[in-house]
């Protein structure tokens, strides 16, 4: 089964943004950012787009499906 991977931590380090800062900018909690980074939670499209907007990159650069795009 495909798994959603992300590079949120990497981009945060690049832009020197703390979890709390990122959370405040997208209107979520710090725990949500921590969960996403650990891969314990797949964010909604809205949240993923908001995160991408903060880092000013395309959403696909941060979130990707590991193991292909289908379950076949």
């Amino acid at each position, binding site marked *: 089964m495909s798994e959603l991977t992300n590079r949120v931590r990497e981009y945060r380090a690049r832009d020197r943004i703390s979890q709390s800062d990122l959370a405040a900018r997208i209107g979520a*909690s710090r725990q949500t950012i921590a969960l996403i980074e650990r891969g314990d*939670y797949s964010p909604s499209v809205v949240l993923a787009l908001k995160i991408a907007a903060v880092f000013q990159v395309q959403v696909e650069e941060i979130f990707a499906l590991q193991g292909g795009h289908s379950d076949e």
Partner: protein
Amino acid sequence: MSKKIKKSMHLLIYLGLGAVFGFMITSRVVTESVSSLRFEPTLYYTYDLAFGLAALLAVGLAIWTIVGIVRLPAQPLGDEASEEETNRQEYLLSKLMLSSLYCVIVSLTWLFTALAYASSSAAVPEDSSFIVINLISSVIATFGSTFLQVRTVQVYNRYFPERTLDLFGKNGAKEFFDKLDEAERYIVYRSAFSAYKAVNVSLIIGMFGFVIYSILVSFNPMPILALGIIWIIQQTAYYWEASKYYRNK
């Protein structure tokens, strides 16, 4: 160990348990030899050991909660703190919430048991002083544990001012849920489903336990009936909520 072997092992265990249980019910040797068994954990006064254990648990949990409140800084760490430190602090806070809740549950169980014993015909008139002291102590424990829980929630609310918890509010749980963001709601959904499964299993184990109690001590249908009613209420609440989403508007 493969899944097939695990399944076979489980089946064998269930078969063994079934055999033991069947033997206990049908064998007169077992029922007659335990017919004199009484569940009255007692040292000096009737049931004093059981109530003493409840008191010990309540006091232990209260001390644990107080230590937790004292150890946790009054204010959350600032932005300069590392993520590991913040995570550790929030983990401690979650443990604190749990211990204060356990303290309330144990104290309430103690209070209701003490109340039931004091009002029942099983209460020994010669133990009246013990019964009164036990009742008063359980009331104090209940107030004390409630106070500790309120203090714990105050600490929680200081840590998370954007999603404060109103313990005694009419719609406290709903209002709290509305304040959560999507990942936190996901955590609540996963935790609630785990709790739902755990309650289902606990109810069956509880019913089975009371059957064993009836065999070993004395027959009492009320606990089994109460567990059955709780099970019906739990399932009805679950399906009622779920069916809302399938109804034609």
